[in-house]
């Protein structure tokens, strides 16, 4: 059984249908890239999978580890190992990064029936994972994303992923707006987290990310449907031809 099984998923925002029948199967150990132009439904797909209230699922099914994912609250999905790296990470003034991560990690561990990490073990873990993405320790003490640069916010997402060790990491345009150095750091963090038990869903607009994170599968999402799936060579084809080809096919 695949870790994530998306069957004919339809979703709407404020009455407008954005996803029009998505089918996708992601197994443990795999890296899938979902590519598509602006407005194709990429971010909607990631938010629906993470459990955002603002999106209405109008049809289809999503199984995660055999369970009905769409039936769960956002926090329960996270506790079962679903992680969303935000395209636009939210600033939370007044809540320190470490405090926030401790609350998250404890909630997840509690759900798994594990003891809370003591202060020493927790600090060791976050220091270790911060170094994965070259994250300055000063940023750990600061309020979540407050005053962070674009690159720092994205790094913070990967850092959180590294601390929380999800089963399924959905990274929504984590590469957008990054310069090449920041992109390398982010890619390095993701690559370090690749694991036979962990799956990645990379949602991206640009093929460039895939030069640094080699995907097993590439899917082209246009107008709410996956138009084509293939290996990493599909990304190269996209780079040459652009999305227009797929849009025409759809027409």
């Amino acid at each position, binding site marked *: 059984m695949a870790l994530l099984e998306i069957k004919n998923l339809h979703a709407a925002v404020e009455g407008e249908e954005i996803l029009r029948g998505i089918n996708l199967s992601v197994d443990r150990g795999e890296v899938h890239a979902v590519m598509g132009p602006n407005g194709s439904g990429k971010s909607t797909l990631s938010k629906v999978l*993470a*459990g*955002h*209230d*603002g999106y209405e699922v109008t049809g289809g099914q999503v199984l995660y580890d055999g369970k009905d994912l769409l039936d769960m*609250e*956002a*926090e329960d*999905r*996270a*506790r079962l190992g679903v*992680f*969303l790296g*935000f395209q636009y*990470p*939210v600033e*939370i*003034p*007044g*809540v320190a990064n470490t*405090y*926030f*991560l*401790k*609350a*998250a*990690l*404890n*909630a*997840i561990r509690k*759900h798994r029936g594990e003891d809370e990490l003591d202060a020493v073990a927790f600090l060791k873990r976050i220091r270790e994972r911060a170094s994965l993405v070259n994250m300055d320790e000063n940023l750990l003490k600061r*309020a979540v994303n407050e005053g962070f640069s674009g690159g720092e916010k994205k790094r913070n997402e990967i850092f*959180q992923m590294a601390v*929380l060790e999800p089963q399924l990491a959905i990274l929504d345009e984590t590469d957008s707006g990054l310069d090449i150095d920041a992109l390398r750091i982010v890619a390095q963090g993701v690559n370090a987290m690749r694991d036979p038990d962990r799956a990645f869903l990379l949602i991206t607009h640009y093929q460039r990310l895939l030069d640094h994170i080699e995907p097993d599968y590439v899917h082209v999402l246009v107008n709410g449907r996956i138009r084509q799936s293939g290996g990493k060579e599909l990304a190269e084809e996209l780079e040459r031809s652009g999305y227009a080809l797929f849009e025409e096919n759809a027409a």
Partner: protein
Amino acid sequence: MEAVTELKSAYMEIFEAAAQAGGMLGERRRQAIDSFERLGFPTRRMEAWKHAKLDPLTRQVFPPAAPGGELSPAVVSRFADVAGAVRLVFVDGHFSSRHSDLSAAPAGVRVQSLDAALREDTDLVREQFARVVDVDGHAFAALNTAFSADGAVIDIADNVVMDAPVVVIFASSSQLAGHAAYPRILLRAGQGSEVRLVQQHLGDVDDTHLVAPVTELVLRDNSGVSLQHFQDDGPGAWHLGAISARVPRDARFALHTVSAGSRFARTDVQVDLVEPGADLRMNGLYMVDGKRYADYHTVVRHVTDHSQSQQLFKGILGGRGEAVFDGTIHVARDAQQTDSEQQNSNLLLNPMALAHSNPRLEIYADDVKCAHGSTVGELDEDAMFYLRSRGIGLDDAQALLTFAFANEVLDDMIEPALSGQARQRLLALLPGGASLEALE
């Protein structure tokens, strides 16, 4: 003649029957009760009182509480405990030597009860008592001035910098049920002196009672006074207080205030910045839930040039709670180069809660910097989703964000004993607060 007698209020009758009418303050107390007779209790027809439903207070007479009340152990355990501090404790408005400790007063600092100060006929009381607060314009300040049996009198000599704060605690015993307490503080900070003052109100009395405190602060040139005011009376309290300060040349006054307890709480803060270089900072946090009502009315007057004021008041409203922030900034014609800022933000945790926010700017000078802002909102949905997407449950996420909202104000409270208690009160208000406490 009988008709005239009938027109007297019950409070005037109590006043006339009591022995307090004599003594050094006799005339001032007499003027105060006359002011009350003239003012009467405020009504909702008055703009400044239009949200205040005072009926339970006005349809019953609350005579001053007698001395001798015993505090419950729970109340005693909540005393602001600050190492090395001078501590004065008043029970139902009466000085309690048993709970107080005046031995730590350093040289140049005179701390005594009002009763003791009156017996010694100190110049501070003679010159300043009821001279800072607006007795003629505030019915409850007038009642306090007429009836305050006791209080804290603190006199700090020039250039004395106090390491530890002076802690003044006004606590309520069960004897206060159906009665009134009139706590009073008079502080004078000498030129170049620095002092931190803690004013804590607390109690656990369920039956309706009145707590009407007055705090008067007299600052001399270049002095610094920080008042940490924590209003946490029992569930039956109607707390109607006044804090008044006069800030002269180069003097700095900081007020940190938290309103958490009582059924009804209103504090009128009046600060006059009367000479160049006068500086005011005010941070306030009010929390209401159930049917609680909390109200801050601030009036800041920039009288001459080059003074500054900064105000930040935050409200957290749950249940069917109601809160008012009403802040007047008056900049006189001669007060050029005034720098004034006022911000009020309210967080609604329940759609049934009600927040009123009224900034009022009265600016008569033309070269000034005055900024103000006011918001009423709910928790940020994006932030809620962000936290939940990391595994943090709904209640915990709400608690965390609410806590973060309040923390900006609490972080500035210098006395850990008080900010710790305020944090606990805040966490108790929030679903999920208990698990947040474990993270501390």
